[in-house]
């Protein structure tokens, strides 16, 4: 399990990022769509990849061992026949192609046991005179995964039968797979009357799940209508079956290398516990938890940290209103259990201390939209409020403040901004010393709507190094130094203010590949790291590299931050791709020199 988990985590995080030298640009293979974006465990599936420069993309890169055969290929499309072994867990996985011309961008593909029915060409579903045309429905048998597309200005309609009392789960997999449709599921009876609607189920972001029990046997219909934009990735997967699914998990992560007892809460509230070792990779702060017993869900996004972990419930004791936190830095795992609930933590502090507190919840599948506050209980003074960091398009709050003179105790409170609560509202609250800090981004910012800008950004999450040659990757520092023109006004969080030198180092280089950098000088916001491949470097063997920025504060404390793919909200790929898939490592490949045209 751990190996599988690790391999999943390893390449899964590769998403969308990176930057490569300008040379890479649009010449490597580029995948626009994967059709169907689904594989069947234990069976053979043919997938077609459509994009550019795919004629020499001879290999498929998956994070698990699979039997793969390339059945056809042209500049604009290529087909692979894939047999997923029984040992692979259902879930969502990254997929790329590579070959002598380089390594492609990332797309996601779901893996499961249900049959895949391709419906793109079926032309099923339409309205006439304002009424749904039930005769236009495509009959399907569940359990199944319907792989469809072209929903932006159309509907798809499917007919199915059930027995009385049958419970079925209808779930879309679009944004979870980085696809653009934004559907509404509508369930209709045999007369076309609406029985139920579902859109944007909390914890699934823009995907939805409809869990319905049919009182009467008979024929029913499920309709999909999308409100999303079109584009190349206008595909969807609609899963239908009596599937158990995970409503939430707790905790949402753990300390690197430690074993965590994760409780998975099923659709009826039944809790299944499992022990999982958290990956120890320091370059990543997230991983995915397979959910083999909950086939209605894809794998769950989890966090990994380096601080001691504690649990709010165990800390709370006998209904304490404020939980004393004497040992920090710490990551506290908790949950806003009730509507209107507020969790409070009282910290022992010293005047002048800089405290940083950050919540991780939303992008780990929690429904929490956190509101974090810090106050001095003695003087009833609000010290800091954190609501929306905007970092990673995040709603998770964070704040940093300096303890005022005379204050030896502060209280941190966390609640849902909208006053909600419940079992789907778990969180991680990390409390640590603050101070000047920075982010590092891989790649350069580029207008995605300018020429093929978005493709360039999409493709830049790879490093293709010619054997005996070199390629440079741009690294951007987000310093957010007070008094200077902000280098990104969008970020409103606590990480800011480091203005010193940043050393850039690469970790995980394969034999025959080296990296060098002059770093990022004080006051500058960008630098480069150059990868070189010797004549003896192994070719066409993908590898991963983490780029770290290392720096020292004036007080001597050391900082080590990993470079992530730049987030640019207008980038279609980033807008639709689940955040967890954003790369914290470069994926590289060494190619023959003569192929670097």
């Amino acid at each position, binding site marked *: 399990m751990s190996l599988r988990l690790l391999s999943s985590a390893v390449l899964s995080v590769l998403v969308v990022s990176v930057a490569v030298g300008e040379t890479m640009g649009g010449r490597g293979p580029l995948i626009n769509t994967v059709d169907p974006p689904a594989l069947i465990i234990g069976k053979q599936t043919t997938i077609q990849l459509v994009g550019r420069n795919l004629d020499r993309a001879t290999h498929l890169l998956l994070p698990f061992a699979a039997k793969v055969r390339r059945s056809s290929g042209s500049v604009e499309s290529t087909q692979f026949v894939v047999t997923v072994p029984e040992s692979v867990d259902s879930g969502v996985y990254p997929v790329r192609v590579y070959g002598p011309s380089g390594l492609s961008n990332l797309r996601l593909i779901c893996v499961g046991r249900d049959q895949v029915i391709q419906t793109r060409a079926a032309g099923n579903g339409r309205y006439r005179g304002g009424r749904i045309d039930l005769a236009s429905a495509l009959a399907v048998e569940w359990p199944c995964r319907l792989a469809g597309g072209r929903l932006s200005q159309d509907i798809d309609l499917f007919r199915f039968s059930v027995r009385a009392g049958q419970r079925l789960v209808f779930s879309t997999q679009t944004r979870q797979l980085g696809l653009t449709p934004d559907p509404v599921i509508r369930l209709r009876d045999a007369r076309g009357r609406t029985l139920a609607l579902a859109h944007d189920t909390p914890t699934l972001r823009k995907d939805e799940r409809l869990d319905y029990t049919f009182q009467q046997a008979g024929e029913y219909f499920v309709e999909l209508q999308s409100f*999303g934009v079109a584009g190349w990735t206008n595909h969807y997967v609609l899963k239908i079956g009596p599937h158990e699914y995970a409503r939430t998990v707790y905790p949402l992560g753990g300390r690197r290398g430690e074993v965590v007892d994760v409780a998975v809460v099923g659709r009826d509230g039944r809790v299944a516990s499992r022990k999982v070792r958290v990956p120890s990779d320091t370059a990543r702060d997230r991983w995915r938890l397979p959910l083999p017993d909950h086939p209605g869900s894809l794998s769950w996004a989890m966090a990994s940290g380096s601080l001691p972990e504690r649990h709010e419930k165990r800390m709370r004791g006998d209904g304490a209103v404020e939980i004393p936190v004497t040992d920090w830095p710490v990551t506290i795992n908790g949950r806003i259990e009730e509507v209107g609930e507020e969790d409070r933590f009282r910290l022992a502090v010293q005047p002048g201390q800089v405290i940083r507190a950050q919540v991780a919840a939303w992008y780990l599948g929690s429904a929490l*939209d956190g509101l974090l506050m810090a106050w001095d209980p003695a003087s009833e003074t609000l010290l800091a409020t954190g*609501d929306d960091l905007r970092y990673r398009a995040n709603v998770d709050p964070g704040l940093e403040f300096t303890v005022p003179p005379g204050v030896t105790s502060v209280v941190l409170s966390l609640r849902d901004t909208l006053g909600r609560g419940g079992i789907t509202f778990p969180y991680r609250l990390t409390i640590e010393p603050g101070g000047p800090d920075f982010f590092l981004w891989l790649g350069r910012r580029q207008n995605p709507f300018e020429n093929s800008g978005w493709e360039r950004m999409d493709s830049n999450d790879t490093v293709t190094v010619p054997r005996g040659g070199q390629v440079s990757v741009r690294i951007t520092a987000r310093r957010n130094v007070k008094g200077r023109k902000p280098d990104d006004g969008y970020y409103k969080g606590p990480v800011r203010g480091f203005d010193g030198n940043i050393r850039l180092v690469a970790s995980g280089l394969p034999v025959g590949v080296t990296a060098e950098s002059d770093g990022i000088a004080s006051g500058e916001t960008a630098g480069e790291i150059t990868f070189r491949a010797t004549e003896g470097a192994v070719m066409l063997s993908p590898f991963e590299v983490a780029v770290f920025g290392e720096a020292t504060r004036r007080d001597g404390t050391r900082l080590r931050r990993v470079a992530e793919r730049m987030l640019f909200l207008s980038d279609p790929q980033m807008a639709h791709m689940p955040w967890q898939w954003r790369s914290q490592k470069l994926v590289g490949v060494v190619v023959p020199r003569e192929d670097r045209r």
Partner: protein
Amino acid sequence: MIRVLCLVCALACPVVAVEPTGAISFTNDVMAVLGKAGCNSGACHGHNSGKAGFKLSLRGYDLRADFAALADADSGRVDRKDPADSLILQMPTAQLEHGGGKRFEVGSESYRVLLEWIRQGAKSDVGTATKLRRIDVHPSVFEHVQIPQSETLKVTAHFEDGRQRDVTRLAIYEVSTEGVVEVDQAGRVVSRRTGETAVLVRFLNKKTLSKGLVVRRKNGFAWAAPPQHNFIDRFVDDKLKKIQVLPSAVCTDAEFLRRASLDICGVPPDPDEVVAFLSDASADRRTRKIDELLSREDYGDAWAMRWLELSGTNESGDSARFKGIWTLSLWLRRAINTNLPYDRLVRQLVAGKGSSIHNPAITFTVNQLKRVETVPQLFLGIRLQCAECHDHPFDVWTQSNYRSMADFFGHLGSKEGPIDAYGREIRRFVKPESRVPWKAGDRVELTHLDGSRVRVPVASDRRDALVDWMFGPGRRLTARAIVNRVWGRMLGRGIVHPVDDMRFSNPPINEPLLSALADDLVVHRWDLKHLVRTIARSRTYQQSSIPNKSNRNEHENFSHAALRRLSAEQLADSVSRATGVDEPYRVGPPGLRAVHVPYVAAGSRLLRLFGRPTERASACECVRSPDSTLPQVMHLLNGEALWKKIRAAGGTVERLSGKHTEAGDLVAALYLAVLSRPPSGDESGTGVRYLAASKSRREGAEDLAWALLNSPEFLFNH
């Protein structure tokens, strides 16, 4: 339309204020003179920017500011040393050039009041003067049975100290319905035509009404005692008897079916449905049809669209709110179809919590319109807009009411959510500032429109308190507003008209009927389907639109059905149904009805031409125009769009032409498809002859369909 006569009459009628003896009160005497003379009216110095550098508050709602403008040392308008040289005397008497002309004579009572006030030092008594508690008018109700007939109103002011004063000649009079009566500034009312009206009487900051009915008694009038289906007919008949008008007969089954289908579901019936209904001889066929129409999803689709449009929610058809509007539309349609009780529906719309994505109802108030104005107008029929800047001139609402209403929303924060990177999600929450722990016990006092107060925790969502009031102590207002709106939608005219202007000075045409409908809705737990069903079952609703000799000139008391041009959506959907060709819209999948597309920017010329608003500055029903215009006529008569639909391959005409070999059958089928009724013998004969004379039967059928689609019978709900 309020007709303002005060300015016109100001010169004609000498103003008598009070005998300028004793102490003159700025608050009660001077302001009365200024008001009567029209100085602080909107056309004069009460204008937002004043006139000629002199600005008074509109109709004297801000006494302190008025005193400052008039009598402050640097204003130069009063001359305390030589009072007769004061500008406020020389200008209105036209001794100096005055843009507003002569307002009163030198030596008149008005002149002497002002002069004496200046002589006494032009002092302010704002805040200390005896407060005016109320004014009464006598008679408060009058009935004239001849034309002309006159009446003189008497107005009495009641002060807090118990003093009463006849202020008949100081009061200002305005009529609500033009033409029924005339009133001069001495309070003399003269009837001019039959009808109903109300005279709004104002003195200082108080208002009252005298309601009038003018009927011409008809010799030999005999009430025909038509059948009464339910309590609605009883109240309507009571009124009709009083004004000596006989109601029209009940409409035909075909008329009923088309009318009910359009009013309840927004679309005409299908031909098969017409045939089945007309062949149904059972006594309760209309009742069953009403229930069946209410059970269709078309019902929710049609009524949801109206709410969306009124709220302005459908206006921002930009990408930023695309999904929010769609999901709200879906949610609202479903809520109405599942008959979510109105109190719960309004609670969701007004006080919805959370994310617009997960709770589409909150999108209802996420638009460019001000919640403080849209909520009272949509759900209480109250137009509060005026009170943002000044006290409402024709209603009881003050700036204080406006601010109090705003308090119910001021605590709210909103932000874009994370679900969609393009900011399509809006999240609503109570601002975090009020959530600090040491404020947890604090409470804030809120004032409702009826003056009642409520204290709520500072961190609570105050909108809940507002909705609690709307469906608690304020439920009478709420119920009257919704029953009036639904009534107006189904009868073509509100019991209070316009339906969202339930103003103090705009009383209902049939108060017992409005009250009974409102009470019935509350008794039936805010069941909107029950309300629609009750109205549709009444004889009043089912009356013919053809007037009789008695009610030909009666258009306000529901003595016959009103002819109503089809709304833009009804017309678009009716044309689509009749021609068998769907109207293309810019958004959404093909084949949707107009009411399914919740955007003003639907991309349909027909919708735009026929009055679907393209922009909305308020929640007023009046933004949507029911008028008929030349471009509409040209669109239907000469427009390509309609012609293409008639001639479309696979359309109704082609289908029916192929199906019916007999000309008579084809004519009958076209009448059923377009007018939802079979043709009369004459019509059938004419149609058959036309087909026979046409170049081809298909062309003849196209021409016939075109003619029917352009007929008033198709274009109107009758």
